[in-house]
């Protein structure tokens, strides 16, 4: 079924065509060794909104997500081709420093991964190495603002010197988001950020995502269709390395145009 003759072209809903794009992917292929994991993906991701990538395991959604901050480069056998632009700038060009790129494009993972440092130092780490603060007060300001934006300040303000990994799972995830925000990114990538959290912690992260959307371009990979429906404005459905369908979330969940999308979101796959 993975044969090339079965590949169908992507269906784009009207609202997914020619939108004011923060990120533009065109003809993106990703290979792991000989195996092609992503086939010629082209899409435009809007700024100041949440775009959800959905699809079954192994469909390439996380792989595509990781092309946006060149995280695939950390995997030896991974090879990416095609054009990926942020604000019209090619991010795969040799002139782009991947470390600086990853400050512009922050990432949050499935499992919260705070550094084995204090809460303060977790958030201050990025601004310090990028030299974003000129004084201690300025650094403290950045830490406070970031923790506030991540909705964590009130819970940790009196124990900033305690270790970050002593927090609950949901708090750790918000700490990691605060850490990503601290370096003033433009894009935040989230790879199943709630899959290790309970429903209350999940709701807090979703509320946070909704607030962050005002200032950032957010791309989220999720296995929970309900979560994609709740938090995103645009949804892209991937299957076997293809972008099958891309459109406004409401349309995708009420009236998908492709039968593969329909089958997946109604639970008829197999």
């Amino acid at each position: 079924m993975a044969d090339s003759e079965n590949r169908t072209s992507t269906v784009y809903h009207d609202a997914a065509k020619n939108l004011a794009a923060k990120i533009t992917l065109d003809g993106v292929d990703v290979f792991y060794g000989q195996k092609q994991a992503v086939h010629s993906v082209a899409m435009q991701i809007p700024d100041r909104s949440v775009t959800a990538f959905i699809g079954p395991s192994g469909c390439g959604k996380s792989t595509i997500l990781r092309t946006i901050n060149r995280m695939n480069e950390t995997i030896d056998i991974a090879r990416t081709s095609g054009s990926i632009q942020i604000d019209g700038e090619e991010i795969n060009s040799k002139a782009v420093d991947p470390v600086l790129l990853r400050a512009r494009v922050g990432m949050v993972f499935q499992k919260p991964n705070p550094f084995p440092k204090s809460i303060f130092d977790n958030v201050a780490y990025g601004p310090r190495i990028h030299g974003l603060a000129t004084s201690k007060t300025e650094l403290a300001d950045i830490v406070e603002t970031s923790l506030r934006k991540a909705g964590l300040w009130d819970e940790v303000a009196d124990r900033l010197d305690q270790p970050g990994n002593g927090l609950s799972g949901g708090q750790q995830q918000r700490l990691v988001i605060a850490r990503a925000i601290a370096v003033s990114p433009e894009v935040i990538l989230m790879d199943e950020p709630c899959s290790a959290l309970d429903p209350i912690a999940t709701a807090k992260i979703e509320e946070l995502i909704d607030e962050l959307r005002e200032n950032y371009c957010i791309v989220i990979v999720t296995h929970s269709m309900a979560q994609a429906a709740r938090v995103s404005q645009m949804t892209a459905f991937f299957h076997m390395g293809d972008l099958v369908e891309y459109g406004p979330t409401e349309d995708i969940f009420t009236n998908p145009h492709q039968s593969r999308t329909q089958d997946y979101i109604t639970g008829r796959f197999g």
Partner: protein
Amino acid sequence: MNTKPTSHTVRAYADELTALSDELARMGGLCERQVADCIAAVVRRDPALASAVVEGDHQVDAMETAIERRVIRILALRQPMASDLRASISAYRISGDLERVGDLAKNIAHRTHELNKSEPLDLTRSVERMGKLVVANLHRCLNAFSTGSADECLAVCNGDEEVDEHYNSLFRELLSFMIEDPTTITACAHLLFVAKNLERIGDHTTNIAEMIHYQLTGSEWRRELPHDPTSMA
């Protein structure tokens, strides 16, 4: 796109959707029979049949409640998406329209007893013709549901114009009848209500067809007719 629940990964979910669709089809069948019977009761001046229709309306109401409960259960426990979501929502709304169709049939049946107190009127035959048209359109609409034909839904909606025309001419006929012979006013007034109820059943049939169309295609479709201020429909 096929909207019949097939090969759902969770079989119990598929069973619930199938049961919903079956129950709606049964309710539709019952309402169709109620409408056909209430017209037959009026035309044949059959009080027993009229009483059976009135009695049968309880069953229609019970089915509406059962379908509503089923839909609420599916929404709460399954969070349906896409075609399943559309099927659930349209089942909820269609059952509401069918319940109204049942009420109107019951109302027509009630009038049989009143009409039987007066001499038979020739105009009853026009009501019968209009009734047959309304039943045929409802039948076609329910067929469109079971066969999943969006084109048939559009045909049903277009068919309602003929019902409205029937109603308008019947209205004029009844008026002139009443002017010519005021002793027929009571019977004519009842027939007028019968005709008006049939016209309303036609409108509900159109609503149902629109919802089936939405369920099948995902696109909303509403019949746009130029409003005729002289129309009684």
